[in-house]
């Protein structure tokens, strides 16, 4: 869709230009002649504009490669399963399954489409199996995670697609097939037994077969006989809630075929949607892609590359503005002797179009090269990270769509041609006289009432946006059609997103147009040009407002949603643009300041004077260069800060949640004997050398007899096995008690979100908890996202809890609520109801506690010899029944690996945007040298030594680069801190770390790099002969 539009625009522009050039021979000749006149010049323009296209193309190729990479993973996992369908229901979930006759009907309909070559109905549940055979190695925290559990008819499986799985009758009724992936993760072998809770019953299942088939069996899955499952769920006859479907040829996510296929499926399954049951078809490959968060990866990558691409676009604009200013004199003469404004503009646009087509072509090739290089260099490091953390087995595939190349080519060309159009219209509007005399057109002079009214109109419009009047009007009048088919939450979401954007964009517009309007009025009435001043004021206001983002509710509301990516991008760009414009409007003041600060040796005064004069003389050029450069640096600061902060966040979280314990041992507690045996285990561990401390944490399952799932706010999709465990709306809400000791609490650095007013400080709260059996503290889960539905308790609430069998009910008062968790790391100790051990035993009795609890043992070891200690511990533990044993640090590594690899990728691409910045500066300086040849000759004949010319350019480029670096770093830090503060409101553990050392190091590196690039043209300039002074026009 987007690509079609781009292609149409491109075609239209080229067609128009082509016909215009055919009709206007003189502009065509002038344009073409200019391209051929100076090859060096042409090469430089092409080189510069190429960079933009190359970045666009590089980003697209990278995203194609990532897509291909992820698709490969997905294919490996889901194989020939192309889609699935599921039953969703809000009540009595198990009763809403499809019956055999309904399934037969669906099967027939699918056959008739001729597109389906596999259909496998199943019962699908999520279970959390516990392994019974004890082992140590290879076990991970994933033991606690749910796994997909399917009841299928193995006879039917043989007919699914081209699957060749041969499962003969199980020896035992409770036999299961598990996927290889799951078996490796859990270290399960044939013959092992696992315990799962099915319905409400614990069941022992026995592994009889391990399959490394992809397709139905791909991923982490367990398969059992459907009749056995149905029987244990108390079904009289088989019923189904899940369907695997295979397309005859297989489909690719996002492809036309895929959409078409899922539409066909939807129409078939929709017939079985009833009032209290919904059938939902998913393109499973798409799901898999989204499910791994891989798409977000690509989106983030593209979003970050936007800064680099924007820098490339600025380079293009800058180049053409230089070209135009160089041509000003010539164009004035052409205007004087022959051409009309339009024809003049046309000649320039034709010239620009030729450059842009050549450069886009070259840019696409270079972009592919960039993409290839990045994938090549990332391959090793990327894989290293992922391998070490036992996460995705990822091999980066280099791949690109032809479409991406065409898009990059078209977008690159369109941007360049539009830039020349814009520039040439500006130039051709200059009066002949001012062009010939190189006067800058006084804009303010043209102001009349028409202009003022126009600006006033735009100003009011943006103000209007700001007050959200328009939006409110739309909502009120067209609410139904606007939000058709959306639920309340979605309506609220879109409203808040829209309001946030209207506010911010409206404000930006109002400030800018307000400045223009004021400038025009001041000119009209007082004949004073105050535009720079007003701009400066407006833009400072814009920066202040952006920085105050966390205080502005419109924006913080928007920031809760994914849609905020745009806001983050826009506000970042706004900060950089505003500061660059403010700087370029006040360059004269800045140069004066620099002169005062540095007061150069008298010999160097003329060099300083010249070096600093050019940037402030070419204000817009300097502004664009600054902008281009500082955008790149902004991004670098952003990433450095984010990286440092997330790293430290992870460390904080680990120490906060575990109080410095490094190892976690999960003993098997399915029997009472095993449970009681933990004490021996603990003593044994304590005796081990280099073990500093051991702590036992028990988690007991309980329910809230008065709270049903259906009463909770933000209800889940009941019965959606992907989103939450299967529970019924009428079930009691259930959660856990974290049974803790006072010593353990003391070790942790826990913060309260709020606590009862009668307590002075946090330790009093804990004292009270351990002193009074009627108190409870709520853990981190109660305010965090991602824990599914949670009751909304407040301090002072009296809550009733009971054991799972509802035999014992106790009442507790909430005296404190902990601050929420930031990162979902899969392992937190104090997430739920925090109650001391003796209180729990007193309340429920030891028997109940043992029956409904699991336990973890935390071990603090001497870090210096951690590997040895781990080894000794493992040996010791083989005598006990252990479910899992892991190092928390490894765990946090693996949770961060995704983010870290994103950084790698972005940093790789960044290196290239850095080249844009540096080479952009070099190209601009090269062009400056060409443009100023005569002046340099003049300076040389006046007595500037070669070294002085070199120094002059050095001062000029240092001036621009330093300001850009300062702006980029300043705005990067300010912007990132702002964004973190706004987004991180719910993440109090997130402290922003600005790695100044790293940032300064990178800044110096960038500076040196740009100077290196700028050196060549500067040397060229210094070698110019003084006789150039007499070569007036090239």
């Amino acid at each position, binding site marked *: 869709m987007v690509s079609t539009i781009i292609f149409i625009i491109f075609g239209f522009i080229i067609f128009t230009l082509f016909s215009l050039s055919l009709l206007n021979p003189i502009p065509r000749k002038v344009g073409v002649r200019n391209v051929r006149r100076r090859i060096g010049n042409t090469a430089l323009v092409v080189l510069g504009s190429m960079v933009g296209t190359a970045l666009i193309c590089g980003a697209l190729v990278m995203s194609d490669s990532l897509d291909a990479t992820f698709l490969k993973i997905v294919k490996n996992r889901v194989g020939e399963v192309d889609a699935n369908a599921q039953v969703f229901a809000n009540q009595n979930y198990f009763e809403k399954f499809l019956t055999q006759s309904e399934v037969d009907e669906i099967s027939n309909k699918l056959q008739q489409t001729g597109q389906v070559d596999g259909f496998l109905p199943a019962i699908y549940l999520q279970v959390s199996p516990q392994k019974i055979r004890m082992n140590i190695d290879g076990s991970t925290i994933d033991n606690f995670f749910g796994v997909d559990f399917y009841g299928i008819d193995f006879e039917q499986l043989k007919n699914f697609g081209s699957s060749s799985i041969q499962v003969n009758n199980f020896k035992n009724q409770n036999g299961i097939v598990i996927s290889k992936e799951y078996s490796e993760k859990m270290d399960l072998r044939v013959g092992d037994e696992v315990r799962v809770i099915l319905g409400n019953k614990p069941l022992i299942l026995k592994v009889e077969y391990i399959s490394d088939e992809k397709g139905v069996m791909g991923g982490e899955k367990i398969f059992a006989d459907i009749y056995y499952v149905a029987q244990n769920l108390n079904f009289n006859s088989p019923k189904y809630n899940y369907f695997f479907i295979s397309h005859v040829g297989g489909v690719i996510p996002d492809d036309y075929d895929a959409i078409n296929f899922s539409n066909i499926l939807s129409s078939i399954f929709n017939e079985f949607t009833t009032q209290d049951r919904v059938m939902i078809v998913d393109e499973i490959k798409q799901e898999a892609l989204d499910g791994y968060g891989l798409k977000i990866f690509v989106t983030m990558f593209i979003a970050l590359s936007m800064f680099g691409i924007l820098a490339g676009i600025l380079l293009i604009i800058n180049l053409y503005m230089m070209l135009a200013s160089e041509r000003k004199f010539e164009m004035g003469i052409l205007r004087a002797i022959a051409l009309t404004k339009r024809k003049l503009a046309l000649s320039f646009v034709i010239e620009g179009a030729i450059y842009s087509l050549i450069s886009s072509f070259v840019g696409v090739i270079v972009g592919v090269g960039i993409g290839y290089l990045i994938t090549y260099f990332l391959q090793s490091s990327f894989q290293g990270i992922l391998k070490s953390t036992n996460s995705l087995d990822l091999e980066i595939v280099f791949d690109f769509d032809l479409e991406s190349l065409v898009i990059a080519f078209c977008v690159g060309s369109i941007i360049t041609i539009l830039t020349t159009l814009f520039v040439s219209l500006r130039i051709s509007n200059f009066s002949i006289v001012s062009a010939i005399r190189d006067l800058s057109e006084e804009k303010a002079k043209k102001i009349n009432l028409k202009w003022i009214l126009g600006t006033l109109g735009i100003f009011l419009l943006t103000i209007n946006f700001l007050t959200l009047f328009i939006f409110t009007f739309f909502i009120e009048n067209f609410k139904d059609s606007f939000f058709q088919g959306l639920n309340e939450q979605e309506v609220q979401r879109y409203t808040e997103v829209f309001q946030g954007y209207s506010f911010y964009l409206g404000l930006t517009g109002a400030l800018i147009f307000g400045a223009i309007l004021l400038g025009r009025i001041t000119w009209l009435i007082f004949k004073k040009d105050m535009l720079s001043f007003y701009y400066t004021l407006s833009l400072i206001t814009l920066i202040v407002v952006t920085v105050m983002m966390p205080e502005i509710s419109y924006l913080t509301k928007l920031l809760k949603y994914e849609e905020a990516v745009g806001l983050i991008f826009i506000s970042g760009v706004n900060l950089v643009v505003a500061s660059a414009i403010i700087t370029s409007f006040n360059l004269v003041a800045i140069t004066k300041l620099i002169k005062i600060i540095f007061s150069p040796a*008298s010999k160097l005064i003329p060099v300083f*004077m010249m070096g600093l004069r050019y940037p402030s*003389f070419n204000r817009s050029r300097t502004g664009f260069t600054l902008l281009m450069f500082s955008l790149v640096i902004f991004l670098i600061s952003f990433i450095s800060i984010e990286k440092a902060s997330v790293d430290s966040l992870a460390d904080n979280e680990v120490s906060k949640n575990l109080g410095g314990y490094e190892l976690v041992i999960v003993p098997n507690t399915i029997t009472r004997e095993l449970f009681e045996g933990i004490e021996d285990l603990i003593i044994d561990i304590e005796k081990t050398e280099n073990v500093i401390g051991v702590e036992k944490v028990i988690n007991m399952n309980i329910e809230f007899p008065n709270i049903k799932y259906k009463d909770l706010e933000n209800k889940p999709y009941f019965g959606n096995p992907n989103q939450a465990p299967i529970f019924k709306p009428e079930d009691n809400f259930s959660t856990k008690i974290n049974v803790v000791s006072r010593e353990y609490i003391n070790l942790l650095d826990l913060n309260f979100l709020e606590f009862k007013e009668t307590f002075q400080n946090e330790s009093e709260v804990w004292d009270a908890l351990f002193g009074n059996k009627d108190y409870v503290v709520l853990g981190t889960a109660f305010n965090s996202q991602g824990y599914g539905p949670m009751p909304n308790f407040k301090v002072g609430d009296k809550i009733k809890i009971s054991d799972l069998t509802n035999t014992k009910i106790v009442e507790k008062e909430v005296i404190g609520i902990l601050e929420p968790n930031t990162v979902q790391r899969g392992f937190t100790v104090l997430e739920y109801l925090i109650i001391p051990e003796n209180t729990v035993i007193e309340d429920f009795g030891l028997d109940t506690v043992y029956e409904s609890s699991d336990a973890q043992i935390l071990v603090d070891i001497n870090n210096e010899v951690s590997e040895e200690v781990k080894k000794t511990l493992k040996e010791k533990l083989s005598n006990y029944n252990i479910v899992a044993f892991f190092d928390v640090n490894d765990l946090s590594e693996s949770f961060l690996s995704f983010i870290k690899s994103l950084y790698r990728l972005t940093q790789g691409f960044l290196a290239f945007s850095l080249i844009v910045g540096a080479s952009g500066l070099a190209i601009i300086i090269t062009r400056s040298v060409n443009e100023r040849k005569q002046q340099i000759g003049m300076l*040389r004949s*006046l*007595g500037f*030594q070669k070294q002085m010319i070199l120094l002059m350019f050095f001062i000029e480029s240092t001036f621009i680069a330093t300001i850009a670096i300062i702006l980029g770093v300043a705005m990067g830090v300010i912007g990132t801190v702002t964004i973190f503060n706004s987004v991180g409101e719910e993440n109090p553990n997130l402290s922003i770390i600005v790695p100044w050392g790293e940032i300064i190091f990178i800044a110096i590196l960038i500076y040196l790099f740009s100077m290196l690039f700028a050196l060549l043209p500067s040397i060229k300039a210094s070698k110019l*002969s003084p006789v150039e*002074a*007499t070569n007036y026009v090239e």
Partner: protein
Amino acid sequence: MKQKQENNDFLIEAKNVVKIFNKGMPNEVVALSDINLQIRKGEALTIMGPSGSGKTTLLNCISGIDDATRGEIWIARQNLQKMSDNKKTKYRSQKMGFIFQSFNLIPVLNALENVELPLLLNGYKPKEARKKAKLMLDKVGLSERYYHKPNELSGGQKQRVTIARALVHSPEVIWADEPTGNLDRKTAFEIFDLMVKLNHELGVTLVVVTHDQEIAEKTDRIIYMESGKIKNFDKI
């Protein structure tokens, strides 16, 4: 006009100077062929000749801002070709003033700053330089135009700023390529008289290219050029 004491000291001596542009290429131009010329210290010399005859080229070569293809050029007893670029440049900044045929001023500097530049290059303190530059601009009648950028000045005004800049640091020799080309006759004479006055009073050597016979008459000597050769010496 002839009270000036004769000086047999040659400031500049050109021996068999040849300048060929684009040598060996189809568009080869022999701009100067076998030029021999001596200029005395304190002399005022005019070079005349039709357009394209090589006047500007001659000026560039003997002033040292361009390199001759062949031949020798001596300035103040030093062989120009053997001087290092730095030495040449230093010499230019201290002892020479240039007025080119057009586009003389640095567009990013205003009139005053343009005139200050040679002074600053010679190590004057900024305040002193400013004072002197103002005086010089006053002398050429531009006291109202100190802070104008070149593109805000008329052709004649620009030319006057250029002259002010060429004279401000009291050089030993001034090279002027049609310095009064853009001026009305009255101003042209005024300005030229100023230059001749300096020549007389301070002994500044003056080498001028002009098409104006009347102006040429005011100098000590006129040479005529034609197709890269010195045709005849008018007066010696």
